[in-house]
C-alpha cells in the first residue's frame, strides 16, 4: 500500500504539537507553539477559527469533548500550566456560531503535556511535567472540580488516554512506564504499572471498540510508542472492580480494590530509527499509524492475532522535520471514497499539517 499526500497546509508559523480530529464533525483542532489553537475544516482544509489569547505559552495539546455535537467543546493544555475549555455557541439572534473561552483550569505546577476526555465526556484528564496526572469533573456549567491528583509517576508525564468504554485511564511518562488508574471506593488509584519500554513513553491509545480486529474474548488492547524507537501493544488479561466492563466477578465479593492485569503482547516491526512520538489506532480498519523524529509515517496492519506487518511507509513526510503527531480521521473532503473512508493527518515542527490517503499500490 502507499501513502499519498492529499493536501498540505501551513497551519501555524511555529511547530504544531498535536492535531485532533473531532469524533463526528468535520473539524480538526491543532495545538501550536504559537500559543494558539486553530479549527480547520476537513471539508476543504481551510482555517475556520483561531483560538488565541487563552494561553500565555505554547498550546501543547487539544482534545474534543465527546457527545457535544450541537455545541462542540474543546480542551487545550498549555505549557503555561493551565488547561482551557472552549465552546462554540450559536448566537440565538443572528444564528452565527462563535467560539468562547469558558474556563481556565489551574493547579498543575509545571507544563501541561496532554489533555484527554473520557469516553462519555464526564472526566477530563490532564498530565504535566510536575509528574502528576489530574482528573477533573465538570460539576455544573463550566465549573470543574479536581477529583483526583495521581502522583505515581516519578518523572514528567507525557501522555494520558482513556479506555473507550470503561472508566480506565492510562498515562505514559519519562520514567519509561505506563500506569493504569481506576476509581476505587473512595479515591482513584494506580491499578497497574506496565513496564517494558526502555525509554520515555511519548504517546498511547486504547484500541477502539469499533475496530474490526477488536475481540472481546481477547480483551482490550493498548498501543504505546516510545523514545526507545519501538511501538508496543499491551493486552488486558484480567480485570475486576468498579468500572469494569462486563464478564467479570462483581467486586463486592472480593473487596473493592479494582485490579487490572495487562501484558505486553507485541512489539511492532521496527520501522523508526529515532523516537516514535505518536501513534493512532484506526476504528475503521484496525490499522495503526506511527510517526517520529526520523520524519517517517508508518502504517501497520494486523495479519494474524498479534502478528503485525508494515503495510505502508513514507519517509521525510515533512521534509527534514520531526513529526510530532499523527492521527486517523474520517475523510470528509469532496474526493472521499464512501462514508467510511479515512485519511491520516500529521503535524510537525515546521508548522505544517499534512493530509494523507492510503491506497493500494
Amino acid at each position, binding site marked *: 500500500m502507499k501513502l499519498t499526500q492529499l493536501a498540505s497546509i501551513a497551519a501555524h508559523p511555529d511547530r504544531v504539537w498535536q492535531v485532533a480530529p473531532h469524533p463526528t464533525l468535520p473539524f480538526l483542532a491543532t495545538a501550536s507553539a504559537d500559543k494558539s489553537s486553530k479549527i480547520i475544516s476537513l471539508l476543504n482544509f481551510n482555517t475556520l*477559527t483561531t*483560538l*488565541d*489569547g*487563552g494561553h*500565555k*505559552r505554547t498550546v501543547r495539546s487539544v482534545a474534543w469533548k465527546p457527545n457535544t455535537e450541537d455545541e462542540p467543546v474543546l480542551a487545550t493544555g498549555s*505549557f*503555561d500550566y493551565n488547561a482551557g475549555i472552549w465552546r462554540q*455557541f450559536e*448566537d440565538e439572534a*443572528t444564528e*452565527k*456560531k*462563535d*467560539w*468562547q*473561552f*469558558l474556563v*481556565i483550569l*489551574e*493547579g498543575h*505546577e*509545571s*507544563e501541561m503535556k496532554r489533555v484527554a476526555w473520557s469516553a462519555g465526556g464526564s472526566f477530563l484528564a490532564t498530565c504535566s*511535567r*510536575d*509528574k502528576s496526572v*489530574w482528573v477533573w469533573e465538570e460539576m*455544573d*456549567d*463550566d*465549573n470543574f*472540580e*479536581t*477529583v*483526583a*491528583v495521581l*502522583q505515581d509517576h*516519578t*518523572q*514528567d508525564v507525557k501522555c494520558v488516554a482513556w479506555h473507550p468504554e470503561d472508566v480506565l485511564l492510562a498515562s505514559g511518562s*519519562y520514567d519509561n512506564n505506563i500506569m493504569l488508574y481506576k476509581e476505587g471506593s*473512595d*479515591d482513584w488509584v494506580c491499578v497497574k504499572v506496565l513496564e517494558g519500554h526502555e525509554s*520515555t513513553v511519548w504517546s498511547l491509545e486504547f484500541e477502539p471498540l469499533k475496530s474490526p480486529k477488536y475481540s472481546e474474548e481477547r480483551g482490550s488492547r493498548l498501543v504505546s510508542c516510545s523514545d526507545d524507537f519501538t511501538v508496543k501493544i499491551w493486552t488486558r488479561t484480567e480485570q475486576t472492580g468498579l468500572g469494569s466492563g462486563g464478564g467479570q466477578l462483581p467486586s463486592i465479593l472480593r*473487596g473493592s*480494590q479494582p485490579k487490572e492485569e495487562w501484558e505486553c503482547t507485541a512489539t511492532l516491526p521496527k520501522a523508526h530509527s529515532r523516537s516514535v512520538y505518536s501513534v493512532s489506532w484506526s476504528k475503521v480498519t484496525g490499522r495503526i499509524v506511527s510517526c517520529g523524529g526520523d520524519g517517517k509515517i508508518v502504517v501497520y496492519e494486523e495479519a494474524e492475532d498479534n502478528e503485525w506487518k508494515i503495510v505502508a511507509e513514507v519517509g521525510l513526510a515533512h521534509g527534514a522535520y520531526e513529526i510530532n503527531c499523527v492521527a486517523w480521521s474520517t475523510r470528509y473532503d469532496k474526493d472521499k471514497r464512501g462514508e467510511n473512508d479515512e485519511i491520516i493527518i500529521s503535524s510537525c515542527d515546521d508548522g505544517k499539517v499534512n493530509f494523507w490517503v492510503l491506497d493500494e499500490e
Partner: protein
Amino acid sequence: MSAILSADALNDFIAPSVECIKPVESLPEPQSNELTVGIEGTMPDTRTAAQISLTDCLACSGCVTSSEAVLVSMQSHNEVLSALQQFPGKKFVALLSPQSRAALAVALQTTEQTVTNMVTELLTKSLGEKQFEMVVDTNPFRQLSLHYASEEVLDSLDDPERKRPILTSACPGFICYLESTHPILIPHLSTLKSPQAIGGTFLKALMIGEGRATSPDDVYIVSIMPCFDKKLEGARGELTSTAWQVNGADGTSVRDVDCVITTRELLSLAEAKGIDFRSLSRSAQPTPAISSNPTIQKFLTTRLTNGAADNGTSGGNLTTILSSLLARYPGSTVTIQPGRNIDTRDYLVVSPTGETIAKLSRCYGFRNIQNLVRKLKPAPTRVLPIFGAKRVAATPAAARRVAAKKAGSGEDKSVYVEVMACPGGCTNGGGQIKWDDEAIWTALGLDKPESQRDLLARVDEAYYSASEETKEREYGIQAVVGEFLKATGLEEDKLVRTGYRQVANDIGNRLSEKDALAVASRNDGGW
C-alpha cells in the same frame, strides 16, 4: 553533583521558568502613586535582576531545592542518638503525638496508654548513659490550641477586616504549600501555632521560668510525629526562641522543637540501640514531674480523649469550633452536608428559623485542597478572549443558575475550613507505619495488613479509643495559661501565635515521602 540531587531528579525539558521564583533580596524602589492600566502580559517589568546561587538550583521548578532536603535530613533518629551523646548537659524531653501512639498501638497490639508506658520506658530508661527526662503528651497543647481556635473564629465574626474562612494552621504540609504556591491566601490562615509548636515554646519557657534551665538551648525537645512535614515545621524561623525569649536573647536562635522524628523513625531508634520494642516494659510509669506549679502539672499530665469519629484524626479543630458556635447561638442546630468524597464535608450552623449562620468545612487531601484554593482565590481579573464578529452573551440562564446555587450553598457564610494535607487525616501521615512495610511487620512478628485502608481503620480505632477522661471544658484553660504566664513572664501571644510569609522555595513541589525517608534515615544524616 550533590548527593541529594541526582540524575533521576532532572527532567528532559528544562525551560526557564516564566517567573523567577527566587525572592528579590534588595529593597524595592519607593513606588510612585501613579496607576497605569495595561493589557495583561504587556506591563513593563519592574523587577530587579535576581541572583541565583548554586545551592538553590532554581533553573527549573521541577528540581528539589537543596534547602528542604537538608532540613529534613538533619532530623532523624540518628540525629537524636548523636545529640544524646554530644550534649550530655542538656535536658532531653520528648513530645509524643496521639496519632503516633495510635499507630504504635496497632503495631504492638496494645492500648494507646500502654504505648505511652513503653515509649517512656524506651526513652527514659533504656538508652544508656544519657536518657530523656520525660515523655510529654501533645494533647494538652492541642487543648490549648483548640481553646484559642474557637476564640479566633468567634472574634472573626465581629471583625469585617478578617479574611474568611479561616484555615487551620496546624498542618505544615498545607502551610508550606500555601506559602509557596498560593501566598495570596496567607491572610486566611489561622494565626495560631500548632500543638507541636505550642508544646516547644511552653516547655522551654516553663523550664526556664521554673529554674530548671537557664536558656532555651539547655533543653532539647524531640517530637514524635506522624509525618515528615512536621520536620519542616520544626525548622521554621518563626518557631525559635528569639520569637518569645523574655530576657533578651544573646543572639543565637534556638528552635522550639529541636528535632522531629516520625513514628517509623522511633522504631528505627529502638532498633539502632538493639532494643526489641515489643520487649519493653508495659507497666505504668511514674508520672513525670514537668512543672512545680500544681495547676500546670495537672494540666500537662491528665490524659485527654481524642473524641469520636466526627472529630477527625487531626485534632478536632472543626468540632470544637462548631461547639463554640452552637453555644454562641442558642437554639441553633447543625446540618451536615457530605461532600463529593469522605475527605470533604460541610457543617452548617442553622438558626431556629432555618437560616444558615455559619458554615464550617473539612477538607483533607490534595485533590480537595485544589478545589478549596480555587474557590478562595479572587476571580481572575483578566477578560477572557472572545471570538467572531459579535460578542456572544454567555448564556444568561447558566449565569442565573450558578448564582442561585451559590447563594443557597452558604458559600459566603463559610467561616472555617479544617484543612489537612493527608487524606484521612493525621493518622494517615507519611511517617506512620504503612501497610506494605514488610520489614517492619516481620520484625514485629505480625502479618502484613490487607491494605492501607484496613490498617488505617485499625489505627483510627486505636486513636478514638483513647482514655475517656475529663474533657477540655472542665479544664479552665485560662487558669492554666494564667499560671504559665506568671511563671514565665511571657505574653500570651508569644505562646500561641505565629506568622507566615511568602516563600520562594520548592516545598509546593514537595519532597516525596520516599525521598524524604531515604534522605532522613541515612547514617550520616546530612550531606
